C-alpha cells in the first residue's frame, strides 16, 4: 500500500471519529431540550470536545495540504476557515448562560458538520480504494 492509501485510510478513521463526535453533540443537544441534562453539565462536557474536534480536523486538512491532495484539501478548507474564524472571535466554546438562546443555531451547525463528515467519509473511502487499486495494478 502506497502513501496515498495510508493517508486515506487514516482520513477514513478520522472522519469516522469526527462523525461520532457530531452524533454525540446532537444527542446531547436533544437531551438538553428534553431536560435530561442541565446546561452547565452540557457545556462542561461538550467544551472538552470542541478543541480536539477542531484540532483533529485541522490536522487532517494539513495532512492533505502537505501530501498534495488538493481536492481533498479544498473540500476541507471552508470548514477549516470557519473554525479558525470562530476561535479567533473567541466564541467557539459553548456558553451555558446563552445556550438556550443559541441552541437552534448550534443544532443546525452540528447537523451540517455531521453531513459534511459523512460525505467526506465516503469520499475518503473512495479515494482509499482508488489508491489501493492503483497500487495493485
Amino acid at each position, binding site marked *: 500500500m502506497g502513501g496515498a492509501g495510508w493517508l486515506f485510510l487514516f482520513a477514513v478513521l478520522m472522519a469516522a471519529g469526527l462523525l461520532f463526535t457530531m452524533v454525540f453533540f446532537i444527542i446531547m443537544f436533544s437531551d*438538553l*431540550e428534553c*431536560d435530561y441534562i*442541565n*446546561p*452547565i453539565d452540557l457545556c462542561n462536557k461538550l467544551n472538552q470536545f470542541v478543541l480536539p474536534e477542531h484540532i483533529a480536523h485541522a490536522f487532517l486538512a494539513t495532512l492533505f495540504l502537505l501530501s498534495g491532495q488538493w481536492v481533498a484539501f479544498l473540500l476541507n478548507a471552508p470548514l477549516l476557515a470557519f473554525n479558525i474564524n470562530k476561535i479567533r472571535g473567541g466564541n467557539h466554546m459553548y*456558553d*451555558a*448562560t446563552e*445556550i*438556550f*438562546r443559541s441552541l437552534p443555531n448550534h443544532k443546525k451547525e452540528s447537523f451540517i458538520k455531521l453531513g459534511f463528515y459523512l460525505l467526506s467519509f465516503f469520499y475518503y473511502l473512495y479515494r482509499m480504494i482508488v489508491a489501493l487499486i492503483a497500487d495493485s495494478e
Partner: protein
Amino acid sequence: MASPSQQLPPGWAAEWDATNQRYLFVETTTGRSQWEPPVAGPEIVGQEPSGSPPPAHHHGKRRQYAAGQTQAYYGGDSLGPSAPQYGNVPQQPAQLFTPGLAATEGGGQFAQQQQIQGGQQGYYAQEPEYINGPQQPVYPVQPPAQMGALADQFGQMNMGQKGPRLFTTNLLTSPPEPLELRQPPPEIFLPPNSCISPSPLANADSSYQRCTVNALPNSNSLLNKAKIPLGLILTPYRSLKEGEEPVPVVTDTVIARCRRCRTYINPYVQFIDGGNRWRCCMCSLSNEVPQLFDWDQARNQPGDRWARAELNHGVVEFVAPTEYMVRPPQPAVYIFLIDVSHTAIQSGMVATATRTILENLDRIPDESGRTKVSIIAFDTSLYFFSLPPGGADSQMLVVSDIDDVFLPKPTDLLVNLSEARATLETLLGRLSDMFQDNHTIGSALGPALQAAFQLIAPIGGKIMVLSSSLPSVGTGALKNREDPKILGTSKESGLLQAASPFYKTFAIDCSRAQVSVDMFLFSSGYQDVATLACLPHYTAGQTYFYPAFNASRTEDAIKFAHEFGEVLAQPIMLEAVMRVRASKNLRMSSFHGNFFVRSTDLLAMPAVPQDLSYAIEVQIEDTITAPFVVFQTAVLHTTCYGERRIRVVTTAVPVTSNLSEVFASADQVAIATLLANKAVERSITHKLEDARDALFNKMVEILIAYKSSMTAAGAGASAQLAVSENLKMLPVLVLGLLKSVGIRQSAQIPPDLRAYAQALLTSLPSQLLIPYIYPNFYALHSMPPECGTVGEQGVIMPAPLPLTSERLERHGLYLIEDGQTIFLWVGRDAVPQLVIDVFNLPNYEMLRGGKVTLPVLDNPFSQRVNAVIQKTREMRRGPYYQHLYIVKEDGEPPLRLWALSCLIQDRADVLPSYQQFISQLKDKVNGSSY
C-alpha cells in the same frame, strides 16, 4: 332565556305567532307590527334605572363583568349578552372603518372615547377642574350632559359581541397624551362561566403579570397578521405599598396540582363529578380533588371550598410541604464585600456604606434569629474579620495571596447576626477609620468574590459587592477598554459585552450554589459596568451605579444610603426557581431578565429581590380551540424567614379569532416593556444600530398591519396614520426607547452609563420603566392650588404635560422626572418672588444649578413643591431615590442638555422629534405598499 317581551322598549308588545313559530312585535300605540325585534331608541338609555333588572339576574353566572355593572348602574336597556344583536349592528363595521373620525364627526366616537378615558382616570380622579390658562392642553373633561352618551357606549359594549371594542385614531392629528399611560391595561373580557370565583381578584393584577394582548389570537397566522409581539411581563415578587392587599397565603399545605402538566389549582379550573374531581384548565385532564381540600385544618371541621384562597385569587402563596425541599430552608446570608482601596476611602464610600449597614442592621430580615453576615474588605489583598460571638473584639486577618484564595480561619468569619451583633457594630463603626491611611490603588475583586463564595457556598445567600474601581489584579482583572473613538460606531456593542469569561463562569457557579450577587458600583473612571453587571444578571441580583460618587456631597450620600438601606431591608426570596406554564399550544420561547435559564422553561434565581421585572416571549404552536388560555407563573422559594413557599400567579386571557379584538386589547405598556428587553438583547448580540432598526421596523410593521386590515385604506396609501386608540402611545414609547440612554444613537454616552441604562431597561417593572422612557413633566409655577396638598389619595399631583420644550415658558418652574432623576427647570425670567419662595435666594442670578436638596421653607408654595417632589420619590415601587438637579435655563450646557434630553418629543441632534418620527413612520407605512 326570558321571553323577548321583557326586553322590548316601552310601547311594544310581543305576540307568539304559532304558524310561523316566532314572535311578532306589535307597537301598541299605532298597531304597526313587524317580525324584527324593535330597536330601543337611544333616548331609552339612561332614563329610569328602576325599570330594568340588573343583568346579573339575567344570565345566571357567578361572574359579573364591569361592563355589565356599568350598564346596570346607568340603567341601560336590559338586553343580556345572549340576546340577538339588536340595533347597533350596522354601526359596528362603520366604527371599525372610521380612521380619523375625530375630524369628521364633531362629537363622534372619538370624542366619546376621550370622554370615557377622562372618566377612567382613577389614579388622578379628582382632577378635571384644572384650568390653567390657554397654554394648557385641553384634557378630556367630562360634562355631565355627556353621561347619556357614555352610558350608550357601555350599553353598546354589552349588546354586541362582548369584548374589547376597537376605536381607530389618527396619529397625525392626535398628539400623545401623557395621562393615557397611567390608565389600566385594556380590560380582559373572559367568556362567561370561565371562572369559578366571582372575586375581581381571580385574575392577577397587571402589576404582577400582564400579557401584551388581552385577547389572544387563536393561531400563529392571526398573530402574524397583527404583528404585535406576544409576551408576558412578570413581576411575581413586587413590594406592597401601604394599603395594598397582601398576597393571601394557603397554610394547610394541601396543594392540588394537575397530574400531567403540574398546574396548580386556580380559579379557572372546573369541578366535575359532583365536585370530587377537577378538570385542569391547561391540559383538560381530570384530577382528583385532594381529600383534605374541603377540610378546615385550623378549626378541624369541614370547610368551605369556595372560600379557599387559591380558588379566589390570581396571586396566592402556598406553604410548601417537605416534598418541595431538597434541604431544610436555608437562613438568609449576607456577605458584604467592601472595596477599601484609596479611591473608595477618599470618595467616602466606605464610611457611608458601613454607616448604612450599621443603621439598617435592624431592618435586615432576621425574625427567627438565623440570619448570618460576614464582612470582607479588599484592595489588592483580602481582609477578613473574625467576629467571635459574645462581644469579644473583632480580629482582622489579612490574606495577601490572591492567586490561590483560602479562608484564613474555619469559623467566626460568617457569624449569626443577632449573636455577634455587638462585635459587628464596633467593627462597622471602625472599619472606615482602620483603612483611613490606605494608599493602595487597585482592586482584587475576582479573588474577593472567590473568597466570599467559599464562605457562602455551603448555605447560599447574597453577596453584596461595593466597589469603586476597575478590578485590576488576580482572576477577573479587567482592562480599560473604553475608547472614545469607537463610541457611536458599529463596534460599540463590543463594549457592552462581557470582557472576561470569569464573570460568566463565576455567575454559573454562584447560581448552582444558590448565591446571588448585588453590585454597587461607584467609580469616577471607567469601571466596565457591562462586564461586572453579568454577575447580578445571571444570579438574579441587581446592579446599582453611582458614577463619580462623592460622599462629601450630601445628596450623593443620601441617595446611596437610601437605596442601599432599602435593598438591605427587602424581604428577599431565597433559593428560588420560577416556571411559567401556559395552556396547550402555547410555548415560552425566550426569557429576558436577571436569572439563569436552567432548563428549557426553568429559571433559576438564587435570590429574588423585590420589584424586578422579567419578560417572556410566547409562541403559538398550533391553533387554540379553547375559549380562553391561562398563564401561570409559579415561584418556588424559601422566604428569608425560613419557610418554603410557592407563589402562584395566574392570568386568564380570552382567545379570539377576530383581528380587531387583538388590536383593541393590545397593552401598549406591556408591549413597550417587551420591546425594551428585546432591543437590549439585540444591541448586545448584534449592534446598537440593529436594535434601533428592529424597534423602528416593529413599529412600522404594527402600523402596516393595522392599516391594511383595520382601515378602509387597505393596502393603498393613506393620508392618515391609523392605529387603535389603546395603542396610541406606542409610537411615542418606541421613540422614547430609541432616545433612551441604553439604545440612543450617540457618540457621547460613556459605555458604563449605557451598560447601566441597559441593565435598568431589562429589569425595571413597567411602573418604573414607562417614566424611564417617557418621563413625567409638570409645570409647577402654574399648578392649580390643590396640587401639592394632601387629597384623598395622598398628595395631589399636577397634570403631566407632553414632553416638548414648547411647553417651557421663560418665567416658569418645571419638574421633569424619569424615575431615576428629578430636574427642576427654572426659566430665565423667573420672578424673584418664586426664587425666594422655593429656593430662599433673592433672585434668579444667585441660583446655582446642580444637585441640591431643596429647602422646606415656611411658605405654602415651597411646601407644595416639596410635597410634589416627595410624592414623586415615593409613588413608585423599587428602592430608587431620585437625585434632584436644579437646571437653569441659561446654566451650564451639559446639565441643560441632559434635562432637555428627557423631553423626547423634541428634536435632538440626529434624533427626530415626535412629528418627524410620525412622518417617518407614515412614509414607511405608505411606501411599503407600492
